[in-house]
């Protein structure tokens, strides 16, 4: 936990330095976050070259927007991830061919991805405590709730698009997502209190 807080603090200091035009700090910020952000862009876009472009777009924006970063509203990595997601989704919308989703495969992939990498090869990037807690709480959800939430977030699907992917009525999907999010919130606040 302490180490994680230190990391967040270090990233915050780097973003502050980047806001002042410090290029060396910008490079360190990139080194510290690029693997997580690239992996995320890759999950959305599925193609290396597209993910690479999205990551570059995002870091150009991060350089320019660093002065406007509000540390009290979001952790640095959360802020950067949101920028990457927006860039990746912009690119996804410009693609002609829609991403083909296989609902079962998607859930299996997601369950695999949320395994704590600390248990895997040592060179894999450590998850933050927030990511580990979220993985724990997502695993506790019913499969279809988890699937619907994950699909909506990673692929920017609307309620009706998730419904189409899962071949279910839209009302059902709305309820699943709603309940799933409520359970997540409860689970996460319990872990926070613990």
């Amino acid at each position, binding site marked *: 936990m302490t180490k994680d807080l230190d990391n967040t603090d270090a990233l915050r200091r780097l973003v502050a330095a980047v806001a002042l035009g410090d*290029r060396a700090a910008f*490079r360190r910020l*990139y080194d510290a976050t*690029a*693997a*997580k*952000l*690239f*992996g*995320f862009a*890759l*999950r959305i876009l599925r193609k*290396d070259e597209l*993910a*690479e472009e999205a*990551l*570059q777009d995002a*870091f*150009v924006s991060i*350089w320019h927007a660093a002065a406007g970063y509000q540390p009290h*509203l*979001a*952790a640095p*990595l*959360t802020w950067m*991830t*949101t920028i*990457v*997601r927006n860039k990746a*989704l912009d690119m996804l919308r410009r693609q002609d061919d829609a991403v083909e989703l296989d609902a079962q495969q998607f859930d299996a992939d*997601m369950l695999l*991805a*949320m395994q704590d*990498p600390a248990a895997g090869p040592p060179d*894999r*990037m450590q*998850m*933050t405590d*927030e*990511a580990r*807690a*979220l*993985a724990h709480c*997502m695993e506790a959800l019913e499969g279809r709730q988890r699937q619907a*939430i*994950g699909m*909506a*977030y*990673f692929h*920017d*699907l*609307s*309620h009706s698009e*998730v419904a189409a992917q899962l071949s279910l009525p839209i009302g059902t999907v709305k309820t699943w*997502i*709603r309940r799933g*999010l409520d359970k*997540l*919130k409860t689970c*996460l606040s319990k872990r926070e209190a613990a």
Partner: protein
Amino acid sequence: MNIEDNPLLRDKLAAEYVLGTLRGGARRRFERWLATDAALRSAVAGWQARIVPMAEWSAVPPPARTWAGIERRLGFARAVPAWQFWRIDGARLWGSLAVGGGVAAVVLAVVLAGRVQEPQLQQVATLLDDQAQTALVVAADARRARIDVRVADNVKVPDDRTLQLWAITAAGKTRSLGILPDNRHASLRLDQRAVGPDVVLLAISLEPKGGSPDPNAPTGPVLYKGAWVKL
């Protein structure tokens, strides 16, 4: 719709906004509320903190070239004018010159020494193109107070252009040593101050006929460069 007194609805909309399922007009309306409603902004921040860490689940290192692309897009590499090559990636430039240019210069100095009658060569440089091919030889002769410049046969210069020789100091200042009127060879006046101990490089730029309009710096591309070696 008034959402101010409905905390459950506010939280639900904030969650859907972050997840991305809030769409169209509802999303735009929500964004308008966000602009004036600080409590709603913190509700969004709370949901971002919950949901966004999903992104961390699948770290993959990006290709090594990705960073260079970011620097290029931000214009970092172009912060120094293109002709000021000696400020770009200094260590690598110095390294290659020290090994390649230095050896070549000494060898050529010996060759030159044999051809010029009783010269007193102080300093020499071999100027190379960007493929490390020798393009010019420059030698300073203290006895005659001249700088002799010879251009290799394979160097072709358009008729409406002039080659100009520059001294470059360790601090990055440029001093013109003169032009090569026929673009083949020249004997320039040796100004000890112009090629003093602070000079580390010589360079040739391609200028309009008659030389650079700016007396203090090249305006055209720098074609050849080499270390200025004391003998």
